């Protein structure tokens, strides 16, 4: 269309407006609609596994749930009944050890990354290391703890398992803590400095309290992940059919049971009773993990 024609078109009232409506049966519309339907189907299919897992857990694990599960020891081969009380205790102890090791370390490192030297070379390297650790296969955390702890102390133990889990928690704690400390508004920090606070006081009195919800979210997510990990525990904590507390005192330097390893061991056994227990243990484990996730979400949302 030349300029003259265009002028003519705009000045003339006779000209027809182009039809901007696309026919529903146009090839392009059909393609678009077809792809949209395909996307809906794919999205629904992607949700099927979650519901299938949850339903199976409730059907096969739920029927088995009783108080005895939480108070009794795992059964031996042909024994009936039994529970996994020691595995729950073991999981709690090892996740506890992992949290004690990883949370203070992770948050302190994150303070440096976000407040004291966010652009320094060492901060960049640390951030890179943390991201690399995120991708560390969990089995390698186990291999490391085996080499560094089990071989040195000479025994499978709860601390060995805890150290392996800590290794997997550290990067999550660092990265989420750094992220939530960065969200603290700059003016709040400036105001504190203007009042004569040292940078340390700014961190303790302004940054940490303000960023607390976000950091707790990160820590809970890391705990939830650690609670479900199996691979790092296989040959660091091994498994045990006995209580961690024996004769009234806590003895941690011995093989320790955990829910995740119990599920793995029992799933491969040819005994119906053990398989039922594996399902029940899965239900308990998923319940714990989902509750932790919901809690972290509730805390995280309150922040905003």
């Amino acid at each position, binding site marked *: 269309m030349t300029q003259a024609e265009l002028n003519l078109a705009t000045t003339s009232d006779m000209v027809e407006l182009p039809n901007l409506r696309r026919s529903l049966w146009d090839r392009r519309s059909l393609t678009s609609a077809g792809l949209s339907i395909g996307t809906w189907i794919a999205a629904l299919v992607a949700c099927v596994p979650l519901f299938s897992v949850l339903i199976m857990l409730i059907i096969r694990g739920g029927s088995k749930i009783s108080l005895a599960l939480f108070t009794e020891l795992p059964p031996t081969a042909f024994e009936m009944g039994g529970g996994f009380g020691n595995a729950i205790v073991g999981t709690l102890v090892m996740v506890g050890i992992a949290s004690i090791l990883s949370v203070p370390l992770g948050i302190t490192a994150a303070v440096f990354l976000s407040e004291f030297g966010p652009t320094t070379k060492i901060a960049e390297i640390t951030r890179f290391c943390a991201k690399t650790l995120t991708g560390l296969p969990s089995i390698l955390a*186990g291999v490391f703890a085996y080499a560094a702890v089990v071989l040195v102390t000479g025994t499978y133990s709860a601390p060995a398992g805890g150290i392996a889990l800590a290794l997997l928690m550290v990067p999550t704690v660092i990265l989420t803590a750094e992220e939530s400390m960065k969200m603290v508004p700059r003016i709040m920090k400036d105001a504190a400095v203007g009042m004569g606070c040292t940078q340390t006081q700014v961190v303790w009195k302004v940054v940490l309290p303000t960023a607390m919800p976000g950091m707790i979210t990160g820590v809970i997510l890391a705990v939830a992940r650690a609670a479900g990990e199996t691979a790092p525990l296989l040959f660091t904590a091994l498994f045990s059919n006995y209580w961690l507390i024996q004769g009234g005192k806590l003895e941690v330097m011995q093989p320790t049971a955990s829910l995740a390893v119990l599920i793995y061991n029992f799933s491969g056994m040819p005994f119906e009773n053990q398989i039922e227990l594996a399902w029940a243990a899965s239900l308990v484990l998923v319940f714990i993990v989902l509750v932790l996730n919901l809690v972290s979400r509730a805390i995280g949302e309150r922040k905003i």
Partner: protein
Amino acid sequence: MATNTGQTIPDSDEPISSPPTGSEVLFDRIFRGFTRGCTWFIILLVIYIVVEIGGKAFPAMKEYGLSFLTSTTWDVNKGRFGILPEIWGTLYSSLLALIIGGFFGVTMAIFLTQDFLPHKLQMVFKNIVELLAAIPSVVYGLWGIFVLIPIIRPACDWMNAHLGWIPFFGTTLSGPGMLPAALVLSIMILPTVAAISQDSLLAIPPRVKEAAYGMGTTRWEAILRVMVPTAAHGIFGALVLGLGRALGETMALAMLVGNSNQISLSLFSPANTLAAMLALNFPEAGRNETQVLMYAAVILLLITLVVNVIGQVIITWASSERGSK
């Protein structure tokens, strides 16, 4: 200064602000040094992990050298070790999982970001995807053994009977095998791919899409020709990180892949992966085999490290490129 404050706030002798005292400054120094020390600790930890695993593997590396990577036998009694089948199984299962999980993950990301859903429903789907990531892998393994394998077995046997001449369907599914392992693996990487792809799709300024619609595109022309290409680096990074996750995943594979030391194209034949081999053999390994397994761990570490670093670099590059525009 002090007299000034005294005039405006007569009741108080002390100013509302004061410079830090000596002990506060000292504490500040110490605390800052301490946080710096913690960052150093993280870096040293990563180095220590590599050195510790590498050091324990060193005797085996010296003894078996590179033939370890190309040999296919694993015989503890004869002292002959090779992990070619495991490397093959690791790559094959991860690629299969990446194809399936990547497809669903990216589709899910598009579904959640391109106004397919009202806000409430969008949050529901988002939570479902996040919960998918929260379920422990050992539970997926259990589910795979007792739910997935029985469900897919008839279909697999039918395909083997009728399409057996295609190498992918060359054997029957006798229980654990490559396909169930890859399917569960794809479920596990879907959330990773979906989450990171979503971030990069959401980072596109709304005016880009508005411009596309203004040109008269249909929804899918806008998505496929404008949105996805704009977010391509981020989506590619998401796929690479998903691959990294698949390569290192252990439990689901140890439970589902069948622990068989063979190389086969067939989707239904049992196989083995590096991570699964470590999980299955480590607890009962003798001294010599432990060293060899450490060597395998080094290989796994190298593969995942390379893939993850590439993924991180792509994502960093993609987001900085967007930032500079």
